[in-house]
């Protein structure tokens, strides 16, 4: 339960507040407010920090951490595949508040956008008292504790390359049972990420699929997810490498 609310005006002030043991950062708040828990927490709202915005230097695209998902969807700077994944992340009413930082912060096990950021080799900038560090999104997903006491300020992705995504779900806009997204950068390196095959979005190599042990739920057993992974991997890899789709 949120018992205190702060809206810091500077990053330093925000960082100081974040050090409190009961502090919870609020960006869009769509996830925190949906399930604030029963223990008292102090909300630290980042809205006044001016962290939102999307710009590019031609090589990489920098997305401010409090950029709303809808602004990603609407941005012509952002690659089409990522824009579509941002659109699929949540319906319009949520995208107008939810942020890219929040999407990373909740480490949603089935987030298509997170899988996209993995495939694009996105990096995240974290600010702490007196220091700023860069981390691959994969690192943060591996160890969400990296976010403790830190504030995500931006996310960077390469601005070139080709990408493709495909998925299987109960309905066209349902959260997928399994999804795959692949990105090929300008020197031909291909990275693929998936949801629905592990407890979080993960980088997967084509040859690894046989060794995956996806968690089961009522929408898909482990074995079924594995066969989906193979089908979807073949499709997205064929698309990004320009081969015949299978």
């Amino acid at each position, binding site marked *: 339960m949120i018992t205190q609310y702060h809206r810091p005006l500077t990053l330093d002030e925000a960082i100081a507040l974040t050090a409190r043991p009961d502090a919870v950062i609020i960006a869009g708040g769509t996830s925190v407010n*949906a399930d604030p828990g029963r223990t008292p927490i102090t909300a630290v709202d980042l809205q006044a920090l001016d962290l939102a915005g999307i710009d590019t230097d031609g090589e990489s695209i920098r997305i401010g951490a409090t950029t709303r998902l809808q602004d990603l969807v609407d941005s012509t700077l952002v690659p089409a595949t990522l824009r579509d994944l941002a659109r699929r992340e949540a319906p319009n*009413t949520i995208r107008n*508040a939810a942020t890219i930082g929040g999407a990373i912060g909740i480490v949603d096990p089935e987030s298509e956008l997170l899988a996209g950021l993995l495939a694009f080799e996105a990096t995240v900038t974290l600010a702490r008292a007196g220091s700023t560090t860069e981390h691959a999104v994969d690192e943060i997903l591996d160890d969400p504790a990296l976010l403790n006491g830190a504030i995500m300020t931006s996310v960077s992705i390469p601005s070139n390359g080709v990408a493709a995504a495909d998925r299987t*779900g*109960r309905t066209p806009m349902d959260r997928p049972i399994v999804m795959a997204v692949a990105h090929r950068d300008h020197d031909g390196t291909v990275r693929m990420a998936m949801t629905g095959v592990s407890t979080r979005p993960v980088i997967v190599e084509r040859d690894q699929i046989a060794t995956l042990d996806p968690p089961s739920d009522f929408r898909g057993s482990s074995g079924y997810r594995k066969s989906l992974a193979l089908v*979807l991997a073949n499709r997205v890899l064929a698309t990004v490498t320009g081969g015949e789709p299978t």
Partner: protein
Amino acid sequence: MTITLTINGTRRSLTCEPFDSLRTVLRRAGLHSVRFGSETGETGAAAVLLDGRLISADVMLAAQADGHDVETIEGLSVPGRLHPIQQAFIETGAIQSGYSTPAMILSAKALIDRNPNPSEDDVRDALSGILDRETGYLRPVHAVLRAAAVMRGDEPDSIDIAYLDPLVDNGGAPSDRDGLSEIAPRVVPGSDVPETRIVGKPVAKVDAIKLAKGNPAFTDDVDLTGTLIAKVLYSPHAHARIVSIDDSKARALPGVRAVLHHGNVPRVRYASGGQSYPNPLPYDQVSFDDKVRFVGDRVAAVAADTEEIALAAIDLIDVTYEVLPAVFDENEAILDGAPVIHDEPDMEGAVDASHNLVHHLKADTGNVEDGFAVADRVFEQTLRVHQVHATPIETHVAISAWDSDERLVITSSTQVPFHVRRMIAPLLDLPVKRIRIIKPRIGGGFGVKQEMLVEDIVAHLTIATGRPVRLELTREEEFMSSRTRHPQTVTFKTGVDADGKLTAQEMRIVANTGPYGTHGLTVQMVTGLRGLSSYNCPVKKFDCKVAYTNIPVPGAYRGYGAPQALYALEAHMEDIAFALDMDPIEFRRLNWTDVGDPLDIAQQLGEGDQDASVMPLVTSSGLEEAVLQGQRAVDWDRRDDPAWKQPADRPSIRRGLGFAMAMHGTAIPGLDMGGASLKINDDGSFNLLVGATDLGTGSDTVLAQIAAEVVGVATDDIIVYASDTDMTPFDTGAYASSTTYISGMAAKRAAEQVREQIIERAAEMLEADAASIDLYEGQAWTPDGRSVSLETIALSTLHQAGQHQIMATASYVSPESPPPYAAQFAEVEVDVETGQVTVNQLVMAVDCGVPINPVTASGQVEGGMVQALGYGHCEEMVYDEDGRMLNPQFGPYKIYRADEMPRLEAILVQTMEASGPFGAKAIAEIPKDGVAPAIRNAIADATGVRIANIPFTPERVWNALQQA
């Protein structure tokens, strides 16, 4: 804390707690249009504009909005004027219950402000966060496109009725379908339908304006000073005995006003289903029991000053349970040795409670074995239909209070106010005369509110505290503790002769009624009735066991046993046709019932009081026309086009088309009763008081149209009031597809008596023969063109001469239940590598007699098909091994949203049903019947795979493809 919001242009300082959501604070500030649908933001009923962007106020803190601009529908709603978007929502028929309409209109405003010329995809994306359980999104989407066109000054799509030429016996070219606007209601005129002025016309809904403006109209909008908040402690166990309850800590908490449980509430047996007196057995519930029988069963209830205190008190109630073994499967529950769910000595009316057998229904029209003996081939097939939830966007909500006469007044979102009044009285030990039930607008019901579900809790708490008490279920509570569709294991066995005619048909069922038998008898009777009435067959047999289990409680849900029956029947008939190498429609046509055919099993599976010596017959059917219209609309010939079925550029895709016929009932004959009363006002307008409960379907409008037609005024001269047990005549309520047919006939009869009284005075005033006078356009007319207005007549009768109140009350019960018929078509794509099924199109052509209002009727079909799509395709209640629901939230429980919909088309095929008001039959439930089997049959057409069980989720289809 104090925050400052600019709400609809006015700066306001508001105090709130840091944890308060923006929805809570806006509602508290009197903005009732911001509505509760869930705490976690999925329904969008609480969407508002924050700095011009549509956001869900459920998951935004009021504190986050501090300093920002908030816009709600109240900002658009000027008295006496409508915004073009509100106008478009009304004109297109986009409003049903209207619960989420304000959110949709705000979404449209934000979109059009940004992009004056949005595409359909833009509109669908803009609406993607507002779940709608009623319209299928077709009309809301087109309302937004229409509003945008009007605001740009462009010509919008036509909303006029498109009359389609009949195809039966039509040698000539059928009418052109090219250029038909998607929302023009399609009507195939019947040949013998009389001319009418108001009936049959697309009149705007009588409640549309208040709903488009977001005026306070729903139960939750009732604000009584000093209202306590109720919360319920639900069982965490599927089956347990309550060894002890210690409520002392809860009672000691400041602000707690009452804590109720089995220890302090009298034990009175009842059945919670809202049905006619005497309620069908069993009587197996009490308000609070010392045993719990499913995860979500009631244990205790608290009333406290605030929601936070009530929740804290719930946590402080100490309950010791003795956990008992549980059983969830209907077939296991009736075996020897299964846990006995009702072992209490005072339960009444189960056939064999020690084997969890509630009912064992049997019916036959002869010896089926004789029919199987003469058959050329006999087919037998077992299918399972699963459990789903109706999920109205407004959850169950009720408020009770003592009035100044010390009568208990309960305002409730109920479909059955009169049944609730009668059923609740013994539980409270109050006479019926000391109870008043008021039903305001309802934010969707679909049967789940044909139940006394929460009213006894608030009433007990008001009696205990003397204070007003409100209980509103959370979304999770709605899923787990309200009512659901009965799962069944259905076996069909059918004999067919060499020509393809049925010789015998047997239907065996084991049905799962959960831990309580509410609606358990009658839903299963309807399953038998619908399963064995659609086709002619010399001998039929029905055998149905209804089992107690420990799943959340099945009850009434739109369709009421018919979707289960029709799924199994239409899958079975399809597979028989395939095995016989016959065309699936030809095979059905050989056997389906037509005008004059007997509805023989109805004599044994009827609930009401019927004359056993009279065989009910089919009195009207437009099925043949419906099939031809539907085949044309869906382009049925594509079934024979290999290039369409297997597109060259998408190697993993197979396409298919499927068909199912459906036949439903119209009201319960000899039982359902509707009452209406009509009185004239000084200005020649009328008050129409009805006990019927409009759930958003438009039934108030239809009743007003019927009355308006008879007394010759416009629909907006009829002021409808419904329903209030103190004010309106009795009505059984909104269920069994009865309102238009039964309450409509009551309204018609009351209006006919009023018409006679008006004509009598008009004849005197015009010095004309009464028999020659006609009423229309608000005037009484002589054949030679002289007239007197109804206003003059009203003033004369009320003030001037022979003063009396022109008014009449009438009621109606029908001896028959004329079946509506429908042809349902579905187009699907199956990805054979993944099992994913995409439904591209649903077309339903339906014979509902004469549609009194083609717009609301089309809306019923479109929205009904989409609910049925969820049943067949993606919705399911799922449990862990202890019986706890795993997906009590939208998303995991998947209902379709606006940006993923198949194309929808409803075609209304008129027939003249002589027994109905102006020729009407029912339409509200039949759209639930054919979609699941049509999808299944389309999957079979696409892939050759014939699947037994719904829903057709990817893994189920993939498994079937692997086995093929």
